[in-house]
Every structure is written in C-alpha cells, then in structure tokens.
C-alpha cells in the first residue's frame, strides 16, 4: 500500500511539469499583445509595453520563459498580475472561499443524493420513486444559472429571506444557498447512480446469502448492499469534488462569490498567463490527489481490490 501511494505520488511530477508547460504556452499563445487592452481606447505608449514585456520575460523564447517561471514557482513565488498583485495573495484569498463552497455543495449532494437513492431503491416502484425521478430530471434539466438566478430573485429580492449576494470573505451561513444551487445538479446524478447500483445489488447472490444467513435487514443493507453500491458513487463524488474545486464560474458570478472560478475566468480574459498557470497548477494537483483518494477508498470499500 505504501509503495503504491509513493508510486502514485511520483507520477504526479511528470504530470505536473507537463500540464504547467502546456497551460503556460497555451495562455501566452493567445494571439495579440496581452498588454494592448490595459490602457483603454487611448492605447499604451511603447515605453510601457516594453517595460511590461521585459518584466514578464515575454522577449525571451518560450522554453526560457517557462524555465524562469518554474524557477520562481519552486521558490514559492507565483508571480505578479498585470496590476501588481501577488498571485499567491489572490489564491490565498480565493481558495478558502471555493473550498468552503465546494465542501458545502459536496455535503449536500452526498447526503441528500445518497439518501434519496437508498430510499427509492428500497421502497421500489411507487410514488416516492416517481417523485424522486421527476425531481432529479427537473434538476438535471434546469441550468445552474437559471436556478441560481430564480432563487436569488425570489428569496433574496422578493421575500428577503437572504441577501441576494455573498460578497467578500463569506461565512458558512452565507454560502449555504449558493452551495445548494451548486450541488443540485450532482445531487440528482448521485441519487440516480445510488438507486441504480442498489437495484442491481439487491438481486445479487451475496445479498441473498446474507439474508439467508439470518442477518438483520438493517445490517444487510448498510454493510453489504450499500458498501458495494457506493463504489461508483464514490468515484463520481471524488471527481466532482475535483471539478468543484476548480471553481464554479456561473454560481460564483450569480452570487458574487470571489472564488477560484472567477479568478481564472478574468485572468483568461485578461490574458494573464501567470495567474492562469498558477491557479490551474494548483487545480491539477487537487485533481490528482482526489483521484488518489478515490482509488484508496475503493480498497476500503471493496475487499476484492488490492494494491501491491
């Protein structure tokens, strides 16, 4: 097990170098001068462009630029945005917010989704099953910006139960509604995934054996059936958490949450390669670690899976 993890961690290194290089070259490969739009319709004086070009090493060939960037990165320096702010500071500010939001969304979608899945699978066909199916279909069909916007207008502006937007340095309480909106789509998927997996396992031999052994139904469901049914669900939740950590541009925009998604989006728009590369590098690492975590959880859930 230890060796397996070590091997996986070592694999992160080439992936890390590869992705950062691709992202770095892609962002700077966007045609046009990244500084051209900085000075408004007046345009920038050549002296300003020269100075910025030098500051960001853009006069060097791409591989040299990349090595210089990487050198800075290994010293813990993420570089500076065009308006002179440390990218490290921006990430430090945005990441906790995104993490909070993603965690809230994940907890919602996992608890409600799995509960709904179990409920419908155990009850079998009937009113509850139809209700959950219709509800999940509805959630899948409605885009997040619609649900977010409707909730904002109805609960924020008309009923005034909550503030329409979140703003800087939000607390857990303020993020619950955006988290719910963000998690709603995945919640529907999890409910359906759990339901299907449970249905399949319900008729499996080992369940019949467990029941025949005389185990209590509670134990059959929670230990035998659920544990096996959760494998695909865990995979989904793991990758979904990785995706949520990448920020939720739409939800963040609607509720004015200053998270990672908005940061990357505006950086791409402004062609700020330094910011994009810094943030996306972190995202790649999070994704890889989430995948590792999911794989390890497999072993915990399924006794047939061994790593060595």
């Amino acid at each position, binding site marked *: 097990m230890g060796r397996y993890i070590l091997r996986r961690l070592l694999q992160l290194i080439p992936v890390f170098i590869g992705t950062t290089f691709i992202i770095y070259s892609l962002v700077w490969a966007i045609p046009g001068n990244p500084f051209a739009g900085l000075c408004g319709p007046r345009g920038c004086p050549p002296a300003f462009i020269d100075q910025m070009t030098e500051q960001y090493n853009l006069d060097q060939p791409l591989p040299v630029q990349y090595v210089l960037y990487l050198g800075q990165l290994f010293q813990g320096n993420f570089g500076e945005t065009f308006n002179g702010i440390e990218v490290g500071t921006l990430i430090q500010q945005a990441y906790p917010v995104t993490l909070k939001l993603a965690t809230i969304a994940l907890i919602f979608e996992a608890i409600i989704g799995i509960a709904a899945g179990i409920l419908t699978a155990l009850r079998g066909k009937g009113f509850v099953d139809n209700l959950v199916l219709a509800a999940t279909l509805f959630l899948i069909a409605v885009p997040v910006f619609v649900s977010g916007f409707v909730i904002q*207008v109805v609960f924020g502006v008309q009923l005034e139960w909550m503030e329409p937007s979140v703003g800087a340095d939000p607390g857990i309480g303020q993020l619950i509604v955006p988290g719910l909106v963000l998690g709603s789509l995945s919640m529907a998927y999890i409910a359906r995934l759990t339901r299907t997996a449970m249905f399949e396992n319900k008729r499996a031999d080992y369940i019949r054996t467990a029941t025949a052994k005389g185990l209590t139904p509670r134990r059959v469901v929670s230990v035998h059936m659920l544990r096996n049914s959760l494998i695909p669900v865990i995979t989904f939740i793991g990758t979904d958490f990785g995706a949520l950590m990448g920020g939720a541009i739409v939800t963040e925009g609607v509720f*004015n949450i200053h998270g990672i998604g908005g940061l990357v989006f505006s950086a791409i728009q402004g062609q700020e390669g330094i910011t994009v590369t810094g943030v996306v590098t972190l995202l790649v690492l999070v994704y890889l670690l989430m995948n590792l975590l999911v794989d390890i959880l497999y072993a915990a859930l399924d006794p047939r899976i061994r790593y060595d």
Partner: protein
Amino acid sequence: MRKRRMVAPVAASLSAALLAAGCGGGGGGVTEATGTLEDPITVQWGEPQSELVPTNSNDTFGSQVFNPMFTGLVEYDPNTFEARNAMAESIERADDKKTYTVELKEGWKFHDGEEVTSDNFVRAWNYAAYAPNGQQQANMFKRIQGYDEVHPADPDGDGPKKPPEPSAEKMSGLKVVDDHTFEITLKQPFTVFPEKLGYQTFVPLPESFFEDKEGFAENPIGNGPYEFESRSPSQSLTLTRYEDYKGADAGNADAVKLVVYEKAQTAYQDLKSDNLDVINTIPTSAQADGRWKEELGDRAISKDRMGLTTLSLPLYEEKFQNPDLRKAISLAIDRQQIVETVFNGSATAADGWTAPSMPGRTDGTCGQWCEYDPAKAKEYLEKAGGFDGQMTLSYNADGAHKQWMTAVAGSIRDTLGIDVGTNGVPTFSTFQDKMDNQEMSGPYRYGWVADYPTPRTFLNPLYTTSGSANYTGYSNEEFDNMIGRADRAATVDEANELYGKAEKQLAEDMPSAPLFTQTVKGARSDRLAEGTLNTRTNVAITSLKVAEPTQ
C-alpha cells in the same frame, strides 16, 4: 491484514487535509450604524487593470479610486464637468502664452502628514514622463518643454527598433520657484492647458511614493478628501474620509467600500434589496422598455455622459479611401431609430464629433451628414463607385455592443443594398491590438470619453496626424493646422470656437461616423439621501450622503 488497516488512516488523513481549509469563518452581522467603517457605504466596482499609481493607470475602476484620493491643481464639477481651481490658488499665463505660474494653496497635507509643495507636483510629473519608468500616462505630458529629451519618440512606433536613450531625466519646462510656486513652460502656446490639469495624471505624489513604489501601490497615499483604508485584491477596497482635507468638496460619508462585482445583474439585485448602495451600470435586461426606471423610481440616476461612440473607418484600407463612400455609410445609419429602439431613448443621437453636452462645443458640426437620408446615401454610394464584397463591422464582444452594432449593420444594409455583416472580436485587448496594428478590415466601433472639458479632448487625440489615439490613419494637414491655431488662441472661449471650426473639416472627410452618446445610468439605495455619478460614469464619492435615520 496489516496492509488492509493502512487504508482507512491514509484515506482519512488525505480527506482531512483537503477539507481542513473548508472550516472556519463566521457569519456576517447586521448593524444599525450607516456610513461608518463598521458598516460603510458600498459602491459597485471592478478590479482595476493596473497598479494603484495614478500615472500608471487608465481604466475607470482605477479612476474610481484616484478621484476621491487625489486632488490636483484643478478639479472637474461632477455634474457639469466644468473646471475649477482645487489645489491651485491661481494659474497665471505669462505674455509669451506658454509659461504658466502656479500658486499652490498652503496648508494642504498628504494623508501621511507630509505637506503638499511644488516639489511633489514637479517630481511626480517628471517621474511620469521619464521613458524608462514606463508609465502608461507618459504622453499626457508631451506638451511640456523638455518632454522629448526625457521621452524620445520611438522611430518606428511599435516596431523592433528601440527608441534612443533619454538625454535628460527631468523636463526643462518645470521649475520650482518656492514651496508653493512653480512654473510650467510649454513647447508651444496651448490655451486650454489649465483645463487639462484636472485629469488624474496631473496629481502630486508624496515623498513616500519615491521611497517605496511597490509599497505605495499596495497602500496609496494621496491628498484628496478620502484616504486609503484597506484592500482585498479582486474583492473590495475601503476608503475613509480624510479629516484634515482643506478643499471645498470634502465629502460626507465616513467610510466607503468599493465592492467588486463580476455581473451587473447581481449588483442590480443587491441594490434593489438595499444590500449595495450605489451602482453605475444597469444590466441590459433591466434596460429593456425602461424597466429599471419603473423599478427604481427616484433612486434612478441618469445624466449626460461626456463620451461619444463612433463607427470608425479604416482609412488605411483601400476600399474606404473614398470620402463619398464614408459619407454614404454615415447617411445610411438611422441614428434616431437606433437610439429609440435599442436604447429606449437613454442615448442621444450624435450631431458632431464631441459629446452633446461638452462644455464649449459647437453644435451640429456634422450637419446633414449625420441625418438619415436613404436617397442621398444611395447617391453618394453611386458617386463612390459602389462597394464590392461584404462590409464587416467589428466590435469587442466582451462589452454590450452586439445589439446596436447589429442594428447599425442592418440600417446600412437595408439603405445601401450592400452585404453588411458583423464580427465580434472576443476581447477588448485583441480589439485594441487590431486597432494599434491597423488590422481592421472594415468599420469598427470606437468609444471615447473626455479627459478634460474642452472639445479638443475628442478632436486632437483621435484625428490629428500625430494624435495618440488616431487609429483610423486619418491625416489632413488643414485639420492639423486648424487644431494648432485653436491651441494658440488668446482665450479658452476663442479656442473652443476654433476647435468647432476644425470639427467641420471632419464633416468633409468623415474619418469616422459619429453615432450616439449613451447616458450615464446608475442608482442609489434608500440608505442614501444624496449620491450621484460623475460625467465619466464613476460614482462621485464626495456626493454620497447618508439619509437621516427615520423613527
């Protein structure tokens, strides 16, 4: 079995590490106090594109910070845009028409306690103009004697050749006489120069800026009615009132927080539920049928904007070199209908090349060429020999331009009977780059906002041969001479009249078709008794006044 048992702890610690930062933070509280540092007045804002140094910034979000934080020699009225002396006691012009003696008011201090003296102005201006400092606003100083020595022109523009090294560090035209007097000598007479001095670049900078420039950008120190309190990059910036401010327009609210909004729609919803105090954009969806005015009532703010949108024509393209074709395009645009249908009347159709409420402007310089006249448009198209192929109108797709550009394209297509399409360039940056490099293949949108209150602010940079924002490639010696004559006029009024005459030359050549000026639109919350925007769409921070609490 040993291996199995490792699984759970490893999984647990990995997940704990990932979730750890998710905890912490508290809920926001509600307080009764208003306009104080605990519960500041909140204003819609966006992340500035450049660092917070007035000479190295040229975007509206940066100006939103500098306007209340700095006071120059002259300031502009937020309502009429007229210039009046602020830090200057007097600005006297000598008989040679190009030397100005500036007397400063005494007793003014920067927010860190340093007294504002002539030296602060002269050093700041020299710093801004000196080429190796690479300041965005350097060319605002090009009228001053000695600018060419500190900022030699690049022989081939953006080309590969490096400009020569500057031969001096300071402009010879700036001379400190004593602590509160200094002299400005210009290269040539320039009558409206004092009007120009209210622009944000001409502010004084404190000693602390020259000691530690990076520290200054993080914690700027000015001499204006509001001082910098704190900033969370890409989230918010808080200003507090500077108690020792000596100027007339000192402000009322104790603390103002500028909050970054990614979406105008969200800011609008926040304003409606009093979660935000001032907005300076109205989302397109709320503008439809003038809905925002109904929803906001007397909280809506609407006023004249000192800007103009034109359809600029690439004169460097062979197809657009015939003035008759350019006139045909202008005649074919039904401005009035676009103003009414696309903007619901919240815009003014252009009748010249300056903003409609610009101080000192001459009205109607575009005359018949800006009136919609299908018959004459066709006649001029024929005179120009028709138009082959598709005419593509370009705009930057990251602004709200698609709708009206489509309307303009439709108007030209229907009137002239030629193939007209639109092309949305993804970002303003790419769009600007295309203009810089003269790569526009057809007409394109161009927006310009006045920097200072005389028609010259539109005419000189955009249409003179050496203009800093002349992207159309227009060059007419007669026009240049007329602007030059106006620059040397005896009085400001006379100068403005001459600028108006020069503008009429543009009607002959039509380097761009003036389209319209959108009004400045915004709104304030119930918490504010007063509050307005300035003519450049920034929120006038000193105008914000908290309403008396009602029992």
